[in-house]
Structures are given as C-alpha cells and as structure tokens.
C-alpha cells in the first residue's frame, strides 16, 4: 500500500514539475510573427506629447516631482545620446514592430520570440520556462522578458529594466518598474495591453493599450545612432546635467493655454483623478479629490524586497561572473571584485571582518573552478598537435587532481570604510607577494602576505602616529600606498593593466576606484551604490562634489557597448552590476539633489528648512532610508555641510 501511495505521489510531483516547466499554451498558439504597423490614433503616437501632460497617470508626489524637474535635454548627455526608447514607451514609438520566432530544433516549440522596433535593441521573450536572473544582475533598456500563453493571449513579464519614461517629454519611471504585456491577435489586428508597475512613482500600475495591424509591405528599419562624447547640450562641460529646480519648469502648463476647459488638477496625474468618481469634483462639485475613495489596485512590486535581493545581506557569498577575468563577489551585501588568472588572485576590498572565512572559501572555490578545472579529453597522443608527451596531455587531468589555483597576490582597498577593509588582516595573510628583504611597501616586513594597495589617506585613517593607538590593527593596514591622481600597477595582472584612480574628497578623502583595462570592468567602491544614497563621511573629508566628480571620472573612462548599454561594467559598492547608463543615472540624481540643496542654502535656508523642503522627495523611495546606518537625513546633513 505504501509503495502504491509513494508511486502516486511521485507521479503527482513529476506531473506538477512538468506543469511548472511548461507554461500552459493552446494546442496551436496564434502566430504573432511578422511585420506590424502601429495603428493607434492616440495623440502621443504621432505627435509631440505636451510637456507636463500627466492626464491618466496615477502619479504620486515623487513621480510628479521627478517628471517636473527632469529635462528632456538629458538625451544630449554623452551617456544617453544613443539610448533606445524606454520599454514602457516602446510600443508607442513610431516605426512599427517586427516579431520573429526562434524554435527549439528538437521539439519545434517556439523557444524565444524576438520583438524589434526602430529604436530598440532586439528584445528576446523567452518561452522556454527559464527563470528571471537574480536582482543583482544588470538591468537593460529592454529588460528580461519571459512569456507564457494564457488562452490565446501571450503574457509577457519583464523585469530588470533601467529607469526611463512612460511617454516622451516628461513622465518618468524608475528602475524598480516591472512591465506585464498581453498580446492578443484578432486576425490582422494585434492588441497590446501594457501594465507598468512602478511603485516608486505611481500609486497603482499604469495601463494602456496599443493596436497594430499586420502589414506585409512594412519593414522595421533600425535607427542608426552615431553618438559621440561631445556635449549635444552646448557649452564645454561634458558633465553637464540638464534639469529644472523645483518650481523652475514654467513650461508645464503651456499646453493648457487656450484650453481652459481642461481642469488643471487631473493634468498633474494622481490615482484619484483617473477613476469615474473624480467627476464628483468637477463642474462646481464640492467634493475634494483627496476625500475620494477609489477602487485602486495596488502594486505587486515589493521595492524593499527587490532592493534587499539586489544587495543580499544574508551572511553568504554570491558570485556573478562579470567580464574577462573579473567576477563580482557579494559578501553579505557588500560588493567586492576579484580578478582570477594565471598570475593569481587580485581582490578589490575585503568586506566586513566577519565574512572573511566565507569570502576565502568562495573565492578559493571560484579560482579552482576557473583555473584548475579538469578538462575533458580533446585530442589524442601523437595526433595532438603542439603537445608533448606519450599520450593525451589531458590524461593527467583525468587521472589526477588538477594543480591548485595561484594564490592571492593583491588586495586593493577603495577606502578605509569598515566594509572595504574589514577583512584585510585575515585575508591578506593567506596571500603571497614576493618582496626582497629590506625593500617593500609602506609597512615594514609584514611577512609572506598579499600586497595591500590603497590611497595614502586610507593608511592615515587606519593607522596613527607613533605612540598613539591606531584605530585598526597593524596587520590590516595597506602595505603599498599611492598619493597621486592615479596609480598604475607596474606590471600586468592576469594579462591586463590595472589602474587605481583616486577620487578626491568623495565619500572620504581616500577613495579610489579600480579599472581593469582589458576586462573592461571598474570596481567603484562606495562611490556608487544602486541601493542607497552615497555614504558621505564629511568628518573624514567626504563631499558631495567629490562623489559627483568621482562618478564623472568613471563615466569618462567607461564606454557603452552599443545603444547606451553594456560595455564597461561597473561594480558598485552595493547593489546590482551596472553599466555607464546606470552610473549616469546615479550621477544625474546626485547632481540634481546637490543643485537643489545648493539653491536652497544660497537662499539662506537653515539645514532644518532645507530638510522640510524635501529636496530628495523624488528619489527617497528608491535610495532613501528612515532607519539604519545611513538615513536620508544623514545624507542631506552631509550634502548641506559640504556643498559649495
């Protein structure tokens, strides 16, 4: 009897697993492939949407402020010149759509749909049941999409999107949005219903529908983009960030001139204004919008959870292959970078002290997998060209353990913050850096350990003059310091140049970021985070201008691969793996906040008055905090204290 039950259970589990892996679909799914012509007659598909028209958008105060203060000239910054249309707007962009299908050669099931627009990258929609990447994986302009059939409708779920806009010329979206699309074909008509769920800027998802017509005569050209690093916005400042100070954008109501029959309140958006109940407030109605109760839906997006997952503080080590020799190592929420190759291991930062053993284990395991992985036989004996020996050179790998990976050679500290240097003492002792006796770095004879490189202000922060107690043990101090604007390692490490750049007076006075020149990866340290405002330690020489300056320097070095994404990868101090556009978004945000605080301070406002003016309101949902080690209040304190 037990055996029968177990067999039934096993069959049930197996059936459930199969069900989970194979999304439900009709026996013969509608064919979506082909050329499609945009056939909407709504205003913003064919003309310039008016600046400040937020009708029908369930904006909250943050979304409204962000949109009011963002300038369309942002397209002219070097990092955004070749930006494709933002995903929520893409179906409404002119130029039609092309849908291609890719099949699994064995089953002939459609494994991927590819959607292409004139101003987009190829957008794959995976139909093979794969899961979405971890939250700390990069975000792109088209995001990561998976599809499933719900009856005759293709439901597409998209995550990992960069920030952008709902419509050209104003309404902004954050990078916390998710997008769900429903594609339904009725003969020659394709209807796309899009739900944009952005809890940072909206009180409920924004829903719109767009119609396309099948058109065998149309073709989707690609819009070429030959951007250059010159500033399209004029002037000579390549780091110029166009934006409006709150209240400065006087053009928002221009489109209402001559249309005084349109009440102003709903043009500012808001969930209360988009339901029929709002009519009670019009035409002399005495009800106020704020008093209305509307049956609004809620966001399905848990921002706190997503941010936590993009910087997991779970006491564990996670590793994300980045590019070339470089891997991003997340140690209890702190990002480190590691280079692995024939020369050995180079580690950028050592994380919190409590994570040292797990970092060593994780990096060691990674190094073995990368450098000492047994390889299957690929050629044989005398027929194996270029190899010496009696038989296959791989036989050694098959019959014996591979040689261990080379040891840790270098540690680079990007600042003296505890999450950057905490593991120095333990981790450095596991390394080896040959030094002739009587010669060496800043610290005398520290034994057979890794070289620890940092800006000299890091050593100053960690040590103390003779006779005084130092804040950090001697064995954790940098052994090799530099003082200039950059420090080139004198020889290749793992086949590439490694350059350490100083970012003066950024989060502290000793900040650096590290550029791996062949792998095209930058480890940014605490200069850059995708989960919080920068931790500016004003008492240690940190300034808001220094942080912005450091980010600008990163942007000067980094290059996008294509259409303003990919290319040089930037590993932030915390949060997801990023590219130039992500760093630009962070730089833009900080520049806007810096300028706002500067303006308010210039008007004579006290710190308390500046805080009351909420100069960070539109970014607090994304980067702010009211509790924990680095709150929004502390950030504004630092900006106010150091802005010039």
């Amino acid at each position, binding site marked *: 009897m037990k055996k029968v039950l177990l067999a039934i259970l096993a069959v049930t589990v197996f059936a459930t697993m199969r069900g989970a892996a194979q999304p439900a679909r009709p026996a013969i799914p509608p064919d979506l492939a082909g050329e499609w012509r945009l056939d909407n007659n709504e205003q913003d598909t*064919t003309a310039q949407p008016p600046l400040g028209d937020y009708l029908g958008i369930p904006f909250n105060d943050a979304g409204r402020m962000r949109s009011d203060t963002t300038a369309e*000239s942002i397209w002219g910054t070097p990092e955004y010149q070749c930006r494709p249309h933002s995903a929520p707007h893409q179906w409404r962009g002119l130029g039609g759509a092309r849908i291609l299908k890719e099949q699994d050669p064995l089953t002939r099931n459609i494994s991927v749909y590819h959607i292409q627009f004139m101003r987009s990258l190829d957008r794959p929609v995976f139909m093979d049941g794969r899961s979405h990447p971890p939250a700390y994986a990069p975000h792109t302009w088209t995001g990561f999409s998976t599809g499933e059939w719900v009856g005759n409708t293709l439901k597409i779920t998209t995550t990992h999107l960069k920030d952008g806009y709902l419509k050209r010329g104003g309404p902004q979206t954050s990078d916390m949005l998710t997008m769900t699309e429903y594609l339904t074909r009725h003969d020659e008509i394709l209807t796309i219903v899009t739900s944009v769920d952005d809890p940072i800027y909206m009180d409920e998802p924004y829903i719109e529908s767009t119609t396309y017509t099948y058109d065998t005569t149309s073709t989707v050209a690609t819009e*070429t983009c030959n951007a250059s690093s010159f500033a399209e*916005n004029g002037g000579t400042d390549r780091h110029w960030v166009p934006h409006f100070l709150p209240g400065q954008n006087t053009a928002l109501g221009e489109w209402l001139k001559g249309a005084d029959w349109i009440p102003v309140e709903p043009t500012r958006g808001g969930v209360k204004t988009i339901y029929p109940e709002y009519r009670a407030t019009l035409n002399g109605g005495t009800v106020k919008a704020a008093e209305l109760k509307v049956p609004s839906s809620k966001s399905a997006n848990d921002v706190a959870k997503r941010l936590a997952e993009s910087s997991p503080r779970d006491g564990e080590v996670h590793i994300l292959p980045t590019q070339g020799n470089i891997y991003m190592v997340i140690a209890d929420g702190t990002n480190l970078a590691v280079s692995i190759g024939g020369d050995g291991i180079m580690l950028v930062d050592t994380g919190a002290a409590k994570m040292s053993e797990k970092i060593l284990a994780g990096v060691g395991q990674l190094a073995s997998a990368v450098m000492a992985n047994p390889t299957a036989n690929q050629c044989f004996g005398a027929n194996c060209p270029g190899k010496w020996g009696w038989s296959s050179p791989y036989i050694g790998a098959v019959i014996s353990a591979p040689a261990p990976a080379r040891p840790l050679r270098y540690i680079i500290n990007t600042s003296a913050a505890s999450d950057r240097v905490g593991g120095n003492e333990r981790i450095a002792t596991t390394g080896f850096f040959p030094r002739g006796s009587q010669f060496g770095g800043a610290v005398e004879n520290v034994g057979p350990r890794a070289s620890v490189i940092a800006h000299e202000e890091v050593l100053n922060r960690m040590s103390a003059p003779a006779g005084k107690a130092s804040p950090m043990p001697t064995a954790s101090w940098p052994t090799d310091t530099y003082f200039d604007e950059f420090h080139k390692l004198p020889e290749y490490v793992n086949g590439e140049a490694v350059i350490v750049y100083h970012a003066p007076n950024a989060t502290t006075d000793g900040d650096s970021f590290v550029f791996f020149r062949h792998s095209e990866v930058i480890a940014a340290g605490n200069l850059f985070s995708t989960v919080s405002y920068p931790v500016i330690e004003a008492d240690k020489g940190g300034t808001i201008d220094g942080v912005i300056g450091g980010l600008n320097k990163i942007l000067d070095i980094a290059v996008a691969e294509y259409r303003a994404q990919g290319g040089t990868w930037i590993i932030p101090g915390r949060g997801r793996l990023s590219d130039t556009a992500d760093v630009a978004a962070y730089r833009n945000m900080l520049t806007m906040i810096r300028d706002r605080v500067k303006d308010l301070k210039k008007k004579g406002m006290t710190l308390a008055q500046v805080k009351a003016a909420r100069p960070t309101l539109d970014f607090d949902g994304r980067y702010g905090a009211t509790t924990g080690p680095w709150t929004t209040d502390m950030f504004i304190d630092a900006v106010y204290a150091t802005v010039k």
Partner: protein
Amino acid sequence: MRTFLLVIGVALIAGSAAYAHHSYAATYDVTKEVKLEGKLVQFVLRNPHSFVHMEAPDEHGEVKRWAVEWAGTAQLGAQGVKRESLKVGDEITVTARPSRVPGEYRALMLSLRRPLDGFTWGTRAGEAVD
C-alpha cells in the same frame, strides 16, 4: 557683427517633428527664437540628428559654444546638404529655438545662412528638422 537676438513671439510649430527620439517640444521652447551669428567650429553630420557647433555670443555678449541640432543624414542629404557643405571657420547666421533649460547652450535649427556665398537652409519648403 555678432549679435544675439531673443524674440518672444507667436509659436511657429517646427514642422512635423515626429521622428525624433527625444521630444522637440519638451527640449526646446517653440515660442522663442534666437539668432546666433558667429563662427562654425564643428559640423557633425550624423544620425539620428546632425549638429552644428558654433561660437556665438549669449544674451550677455559672452561668446559660448552652441550646439544647434539639425536633421539626420537622410533628410539633409535629400536637401543637398553634404559633409563638405559647411567648413570649420565659416561665418554663419543661425536662427533656432532655444533650450528650455536655463543656462544651456543648445538650440534647434530653424535656418542657417552663410553670407559669404549665400548658402541657405530653412527657407524652402520641407527644410524643417523632422
């Protein structure tokens, strides 16, 4: 003579501007027009839009580097504008829509004239930035 003229007037909507990746109406103040007279310092014939960079005085008489956005290569090519049509050092006169952002030296081309030989763009039908 280099002059700067700011004209606030009736909006002349800048033609059919449907193909820009960014919104012209949101980028530029289509109710205003600036006149720039100065020297061409860079001509970037490219997609999605070309740019004429010129040094010309701002409203305070201070010479700035202006970036004047022009049409893409296909449109300009069809209208006879080629890479060699403009050269660095050319003295030119441009009328344009200014940026909406205070302090930004960016503008949208309405017309361009080179007094030396009478080269013009923006005066014939269809010569508006798409």
